[in-house]
């Protein structure tokens, strides 16, 4: 087979060099875009909504800027409690009946995407922004 520009036959010594370049390109592309993605994630802005999910389903949505106390009662007889407090644009769990107490120890959250998770009660509290949706990338 005759050699055409841009098309490698297995015999071309060029091919090895190009494959090595391919690997460098692939590695470089991955590193660059993961870093850019991380930067966007780290410098994300403040949110305005507090979304409470229990067992993967939305349980309640509250404004981050209206101070309130929410009793998140879950479990068989609503015996499991996480006391969510929204105050001064931040949300935190004041007390909880879960065995580990990790959720109550979590620092207050206010930036979009930040969350407090209570694994024993299957409760996830996340800060979101009301004016944005997931991009609708279809074609």
């Amino acid at each position, binding site marked *: 087979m005759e050699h055409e*520009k*841009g*098309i*490698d036959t297995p015999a071309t010594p060029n*091919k090895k060099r*190009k*494959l090595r*370049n*391919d690997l460098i*390109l*692939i590695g470089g*592309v*991955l590193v660059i*875009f*993961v870093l*850019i*993605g*991380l*930067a*966007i*994630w*780290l410098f*994300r*802005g403040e949110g305005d909504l507090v979304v409470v999910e229990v067992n993967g389903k939305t349980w309640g949505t509250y404004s981050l800027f209206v101070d309130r106390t929410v009793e998140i009662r879950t479990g068989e007889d609503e015996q499991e409690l996480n006391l969510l407090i929204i105050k001064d644009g931040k949300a935190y769990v004041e007390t909880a009946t879960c065995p580990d107490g990790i959720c109550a120890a979590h620092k207050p959250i206010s*930036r*979009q*995407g930040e969350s407090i998770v209570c694994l024993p009660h299957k409760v996830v509290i996340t800060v979101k*922004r009301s*004016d*944005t*949706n*997931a*991009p*609708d*990338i*279809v*074609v």
Partner: protein
Amino acid sequence: MKKGTQKLALLGLFTAIAMVLAYVEVLLPPLFSAVPGIKLGLPNIIIIFVLYRMGVKEAALVSLVRMVAVSLLFGNPMTFAYSLAGGALSLAAMALLRKLDFFSIIGVSVAGGVLHNVGQILLAMFVLRTAELGYYLIVLSITGTIAGIFIGLCGGLAVKRVKWG
């Protein structure tokens, strides 16, 4: 058959194949349903094939006609805008890398696949402002790379094997 007429017929045929591949991709179950936008980019096999065998202008034409047609059939003006942003950036990068001749068709395809996603996300950043874009960028650059390797292998095979008069 006259050379020009034959070329036009071939371009029409390739556009049709690219559209069928785009449709097949819509029918396939989503690879990872948690993240919208993840796809193999099957039509890119045709785009890369036309780029290597016919040229940049021809590849751009096939790509543009496909995007307009697919958006008219299955999408809306916004999906066309996303599609155009991704497609233009992707093809520009692939044409440039092919000309440089540093990389094999696999490297060219990976750059095209990743930049297709990046183009869409850059546009989304102007339209929406959300931290989830950072997460999308990370996920789509990784899946775009894997898809690009697959598309590059298929495209390379087609470039080597497919013959016409």
